[in-house]
């Protein structure tokens, strides 16, 4: 059984959504397509099914390997288009995972920029009650050097945050 950590905000810190004691109505789950992100989607699906909440799946930013970039340099490929299509792929896979776990309707969003900031903006815009994230995404080295996205979100997010290991 997976152990998830729920970081609850005190009442005066809350800026959106309902009380922590109440059932969540909107769940925002952020994924980058990594195993950690996939586990976050699975957890969000179970939670949404149990509480009949709406799910918003968000993917932020994108990466392209050096080999792929070098290939694009040779064929005049457009990085922005590749990034958009990668984001679409991640969201499609997340939708399939949600469906497999019984969640048929979900709002899919892709965005670009600083992941922590974009996720917080989305949480505010969607008036989310809970944010579900993986503990580790793809950027392990960057996480070690700069602090991980999940660490930032547990400190800064304006709602409860569930960090999936």
């Amino acid at each position, binding site marked *: 059984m997976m152990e998830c950590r729920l970081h609850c905000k005190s009442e005066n810190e809350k800026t959106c959504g309902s009380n922590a004691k109440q059932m969540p109505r909107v769940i925002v789950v952020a994924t980058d397509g990594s195993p950690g992100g996939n586990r976050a989607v699975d957890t969000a699906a179970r939670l949404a099914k149990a509480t009949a909440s709406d799910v918003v799946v968000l993917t932020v930013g994108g990466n392209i390997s*050096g080999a792929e*970039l*070098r290939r*694009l340099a*040779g064929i005049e490929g457009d990085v*922005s288009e590749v*990034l958009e299509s990668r984001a679409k792929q991640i969201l499609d896979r997340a939708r399939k995972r949600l469906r497999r776990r019984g969640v048929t309707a979900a709002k899919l969003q892709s965005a670009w920029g600083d992941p922590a900031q974009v996720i917080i903006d989305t949480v505010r815009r969607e008036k989310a009650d809970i944010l579900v994230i993986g503990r580790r995404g793809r950027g392990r080295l960057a996480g070690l050097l700069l602090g991980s996205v999940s660490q930032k979100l547990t400190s800064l997010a304006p709602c409860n945050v569930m960090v999936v290991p």
Partner: protein
Amino acid sequence: MRRPRQITSILDQKPLLSRFWQSASQFWREQRAWAAGLALFLIAVVLLQLLLQVLLNLWNRNFFDALERKDGHALWIQAQLFLPLAAASILLAATSVWGRMTAQRSWREALTRHVVKTWLDKDRFRHLNHLIKGSENPEYRIAVDVRIATDAPIDLALAFFSSVLTAIAFFSVLWTIGGSIDIAVFGLTITIPGYLVFGVIIYSGAVSALMAIFGHHLTGVVERTNQTEAEFRAAVDAFREESKPLEGRPSDIDKRQTLQLELQAVLLWWREFCWQLVRTTLVSHGNFLFAPVVAWFLCVPKYLSGAMSLGELTQSAAAFVVVQGAFNWLVDNYQRLADWRSSAYRVGTLLLALDELEAKERSDRLSSQHK
């Protein structure tokens, strides 16, 4: 809303270069006498610089020969000779900078005036952005890209000319001073004439091959990095021009996201550019350390056998490094070439867009006359 794609990524790039060259070469065609005079002056400076390089190389030999003989009088003469040689070399270097930059400034002025005139004529600048793809951010193309596109060809052409002449001149130094070497193989003695020439060709070939392996993506990556930077600037400009006072509406959020996406693309290309430079630095810095040492090692057998004096050894080693440096023209100018190509493409794109607008104006005029 996505921005229109750059014309460079849609069209074949050859028409862009030829359109750029059509306008850029106007300066050399119209002011033929002045341009030819300047070109001859620059060539003369390169030839004089080469002559001084050969004289300094010769001075190097004489100085070390005097040192080996512990001949104080000869050393004093060499020291006196060095001053006029150094003064002439410094003066020529300064003259070369003046000549190159004067040519670059004049060429840039002519091309910029031409582009600005076409851009301003009949208020074309008002219609350009919205009508024709590939004309985004014309201010940057006129101000910066024209400068890069006219600066680099002069530097590159002079460097190429100088490299070819340097290689030829110092080949003869290596051939005559290095002479031949005898190598014993399985009891047979093989004589290699001008062995330092073969040595420098093999060494330079190896370095160039390594550079080609390590950095063959560099030009493409530099071009794409520059292009993505230009697209990011265009997206920022478009955002400023099109954004409405009220924020937070869906369309505004979309535009912000487009901006962030362009930034992400820039950052990814920069990351790859960084890795390409890391890879090529491995070769270029290795070459910087190894080239003189390889030269010394190739000369040492003849020096130890007494067939070469210390002065000849230092002269040959210096000539080896100079020829090797001349061979590296392409390698050293990889990035400059890529910068030039991407800027020339962007100027060519703007000129094509202005041509298209001009053609549209003509057809509109004709149709209004028929009415």
